[in-house]
């Protein structure tokens, strides 16, 4: 198909109005043509003018709420998510899983939002008090120390650690991660059902940082990546360090 023929299909494509084969051809073309992709995006955007909204139906929200609760593992195991293919999973997750033998954990249902909020309030902000709180946490009964090992193949050494207390608060303690430029940050992730969930932003030059770590996440795999300063929804950087590596 010529480029012109593909361009003629962009309108129908934006309306899901092509044949299946044409759709494949256009989709493949869009992956490599910024100009056409930009046009399709604008045509898709134009479709918002075709649909006016009314109030969202409540009965559907109840179903959405139920299903997303199930997907995060509260209550029954999130079988749906486990079975779903994850085509965009980056390579390092597979490696981390192979290395760390992540166990499917029954979620305790800890509310991450509340944990974050509580930490916001309790963390005084003075570096020294966070550091001393972390120090004290090390000796708390039931506290766990999770080493984060460098992903560098030649030098698998601990570069940081996480202290996870049984009572709730947790701490990221940097040992040798270097300062990043201000446009970047370190970000900590927990692998939950082989999907990375952000535990928090550690900052460009972390020493000791209070973090919110739910029970199951503390026993799963933790990973550190480098992200843009405002953080990312899903890791864009490669794994810098992981727990459970040997």
């Amino acid at each position: 198909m010529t480029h012109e023929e593909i361009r003629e299909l962009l309108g129908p494509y934006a309306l899901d109005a092509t044949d299946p084969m044409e759709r494949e051809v256009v989709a493949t073309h869009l992956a490599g043509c910024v100009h056409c992709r930009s046009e399709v995006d604008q045509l898709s955007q134009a479709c918002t003018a075709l649909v006016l909204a009314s109030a969202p139906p409540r009965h559907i929200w109840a179903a959405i709420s139920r299903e997303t609760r199930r997907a995060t593992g509260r209550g029954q195991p999130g079988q749906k998510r486990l079975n779903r293919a994850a085509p965009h999973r980056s390579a390092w997750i597979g490696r981390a899983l192979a290395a760390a033998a992540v166990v499917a954990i029954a979620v305790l249902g800890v509310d991450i939002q509340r944990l974050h909020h509580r930490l916001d309030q309790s963390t005084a902000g003075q570096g020294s008090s966070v550091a001393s709180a972390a120090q004290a946490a090390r000796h708390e009964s039931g506290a766990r120390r999770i080493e984060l090992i460098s992903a560098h193949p030649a030098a698998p050494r601990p570069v940081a650690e996480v202290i996870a207390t049984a009572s709730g608060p947790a701490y990221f303690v940097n040992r040798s991660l270097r300062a990043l430029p201000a446009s970047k940050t370190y970000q900590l992730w927990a692998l939950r059902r082989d999907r990375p969930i952000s535990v928090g932003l550690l900052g460009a030059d972390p020493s000791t940082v209070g973090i919110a770590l739910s029970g199951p996440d503390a026993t799963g795999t933790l990973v550190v990546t480098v992200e843009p300063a405002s953080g990312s929804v899903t890791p864009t950087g490669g794994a810098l360090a992981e727990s459970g590596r040997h």
Partner: protein
Amino acid sequence: MNPAERPPPVAGINSRDLDPTRKRRAVGRRRTGRIAGSTDRGEIEVTAASDATLVIAIGRESGSALAEVYRRHGGAVYGLACRVVGAGGQADDVTQEVFVGLWSRPERYDAARGSLRAYLLAAAHSRAVDLLRAESSRGAREARHLREQSRLASKSSLEDQVGDSMLGHEIRRGVERLPADERLAIELAYFGGRSYREVAAVLAEPEGTVKSRIRRGLRRLSNTLEPEAGLSGTPR
């Protein structure tokens, strides 16, 4: 450590410096596990947050962020689903799948490429058309055609919908000002779930004509939304 002693700011591991007792510069600024602009503090901030911020919060499994996205866009998604597959169980399913899909894969939304509403509507439309095409029951097809006829018969097919504060007056006029042939082709394709070939058959027009009417009409609508950044009225 004074600035002169600091190692050069190269990201990564400093293999020469693994001494855990080495003194580190105290962290002056509070660092919490909070993404800038995140909305996990409660209702008020969720309502004021941008769509992109809400999607980030959804990525951190914020149920209140998902609820707010549903409040903003659930009506549009449901409305589109109803217009394509008819009100009922299937429209409910389409709506549910779109929002559960956003919860499961929030990273698929790219704010640089378009609005969240456009993204959700595209997901809804795609799913709805799949359901339509899988539909084999003749009764359902006939019901659909009846629905469509009554919709097209009304002066403006948008008249029966409630106004939305998100779409300005100009946009509404934009749709109504489309040349009739472009608007009809778009409506038959978009809401009828038809391929352009099927639209051509219905209208007894050449397929090329239908394709270009659809593209022209959408480009015109696009200009209504963004007159400066949009596409020119005539395709190049």
